[in-house]
């Protein structure tokens, strides 16, 4: 009988892979709804990469975009826990649905050296960003785009010296051509 114990079976779990997920949420925009959502993430130990909230065209309805890293099981739990909140109207993982992601960043770059200014301006033009404030030693640049574009820009200007980087976090919407299939 000992042998049989050694040849024991282990419960088979489906394979999972960790990756970046974009979750779109619509909620009733009541007082405290945001802290319910952030509290849920903190309390259950889920790691948020970014979370954005904003009004929609409908009164008292807010749109939240959450970016998380996790495997299918964790993300499925997150979605179920979000749906469980009383004020949640709709939750969708739009990672695999054609969608548009945008983020805005405000970046302060050291430009005391005049040769740096030219190089920064060149990059600003290539990335279709904008210089929105100038001081004797700083350019403040506004840039929008998906996360990759913003990351690339920041990496390129980093050697000049960054004074400050402020990012909004990702906003995501499903492409209109997909609207009939996905409602959010």
């Amino acid at each position, binding site marked *: 009988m000992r042998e049989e114990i050694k040849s024991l079976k282990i419960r088979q779990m489906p394979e999972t892979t960790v990756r970046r997920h974009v979750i779109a949420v619509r909620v009733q925009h009541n007082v405290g709804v945001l802290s319910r959502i952030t509290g849920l993430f903190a309390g259950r130990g889920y790691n948020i990469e970014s979370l954005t909230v904003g009004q929609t065209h409908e009164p008292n309805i807010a749109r939240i975009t959450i970016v998380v890293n996790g495997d299918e099981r964790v993300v499925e739990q997150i979605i179920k826990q979000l749906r469980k909140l*009383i004020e949640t109207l709709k939750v969708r993982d739009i990672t695999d649905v054609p969608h548009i992601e945008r983020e805005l960043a405000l970046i302060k770059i050291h430009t005391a050296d005049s040769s740096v200014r030219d190089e920064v301006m060149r990059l600003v033009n290539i990335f279709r960003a904008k210089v929105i404030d100038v001081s004797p030693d700083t350019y403040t640049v506004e840039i929008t785009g998906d996360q990759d574009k913003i990351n690339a820009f920041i990496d390129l200007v980093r050697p000049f010296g960054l004074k400050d980087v402020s990012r909004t976090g990702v906003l995501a919407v499903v492409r209109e051509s997909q609207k009939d299939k996905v409602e959010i």
Partner: protein
Amino acid sequence: MPKKRGADIVVDVLIEEKVDTVFGLPGGAIMEVYDALFNAPFKNILTRHELAACHMADGYARATGKVGVVMATSGPGATNLVTGLATAHMDSVPLVAITGQVPTHYIGTDAFQEADVTGITRPVTKHNFLVTDIKDLALILREAFYIARTGRPGPVLVDIPKDITQQVYDYKMPTLKDVEEALPGYKPHYEGNIAQIKKAAKLIRQAKRPILYVGGGAVAAEAQEELVKLAEMAKIPVTTTLMGKGAFPEDHPLALHMLGMHGTYYANMAVYNSDLLIAVGSRFDDRVTGKIDEFAPEAKIIHIDIDPASISKTIHVDVPIVGDVKKVLQKLIKELERKPVEWDEARESWIKLIEKWKIEHPLTYDRKSKIIKPEYVVEEIYNITKGEAIITAGVGQHQMWAAMFYKYKFPRQFINSGGLGTMGFGFPAAVGAKIARPDKEVIAIEGDGSFLMNIQDIATAVQYRVPVKVAILNNEFLGMVRQWQELFYDSRYSSVCLSTQPDFVKLAESFGAVGLRATKPSEVKKVLKEAMSINDRPVIMDFAVDREENVLPMVPAGKSYREMILHPGEKGEAETMYLVG
């Protein structure tokens, strides 16, 4: 409608919701509501601690399925509720907590007795509200009741600033339709997907070693009739969790009693060796599964639950069915009536094997002991009440013995804090249950440690003449912690000795209750008999039990069922474990 004070609107909604009892303790911020309660046409129980009030409302709710109502003032009154709310939340108990808050214009100023109560209670409630406008008061209160009792039930807290209870408003009682419209995102799913139910039926027909694993969801749904029918028609043995006790009658031949950490040998063996596990309103808690990847390693899993978030949370499920347990079981039964299970040899031998395990490894203890064994006290409680009493328990060894040695027949018969494991729950829960079910004998099986955690509320039980019985299994230890120290910390008994304790008999008498004591096995029946004859006051029975008795069998935390520790005198554990089929 005439103009009414906010406080009177609160009472109106309670009447509209058919509340017959509220539990609580007043203070500055909720005085206006207490003033309105003065003339209210329902019982208002003054407790001696807000936490006890919350547990009483909880016991009331668990004993009936109705929403329990608790009230407290702002600040410390409200924070005293937190443990009670968390207890109810973990066990899905419908409660509405109404708390006073400092006046609206003081909020955020660190005013006297101000606390961010909605902030503090957010993770331990199903939902909560801060009323900011008297126009919303009635609707919010009705939403609270609706949310508490529908879907997967749970506690809901409504925080009402004092000025709002004092304002006057010309209101109309909101209808159920108003409530539903105010909650557009809240749509519990009751029916169960029929394609999934058909898949489940198919798995049941194919199974050779099926088992039903039933939890508190089946108690909440009061699905006993359906469970018995399903188990009998397909001859499936049934094991229940601590919370599922009573969902299936434990004197039924197919009953395997509790599984998990302190499960019976035969239940754990059956689960371990099963090829199909039908989880009904249970949630694969770690105290049930032990080491998760060795839990029922060969079994396919069907999971029926009202809460989608409970499904595939800790364990992957093959056939998830979201819905009300009772409704889904009814449909599953229909499906199996349409095309029944074919009886074959494999299933016959599965039942026979389990019967053999049941005979070879019943729950046991030393029946010849000269010292009172705690298990013996529970068995005698069972005998004298003919298995008909409602039993509540604190948390610890006595809770496990109460679960293991009393055979529960009907749902809502065993009331205990399963999810949070809250010491101090048992006695106040018994008071609440007895107020809700005066027709039933209600007995709190308590630990000497747990009972002291809400001892003050003996006064409440005496004041309202609530004839609950308390049976203290007094081992002068935080016994469960001591057991773990004995087994896993080399018997280093750190901070567990409770031999400095009150004389519970005198203590009972000082409150105006009756105190009784048994120190020898021969006195147990006599004490119980005397206690049962008293019906106008609470009775506290102090049983001096074997101090170092252990709860066995036991699957150590996080271990596989294979590593189950059996009662001394039984055969070694692993040797007797084998896989069938």
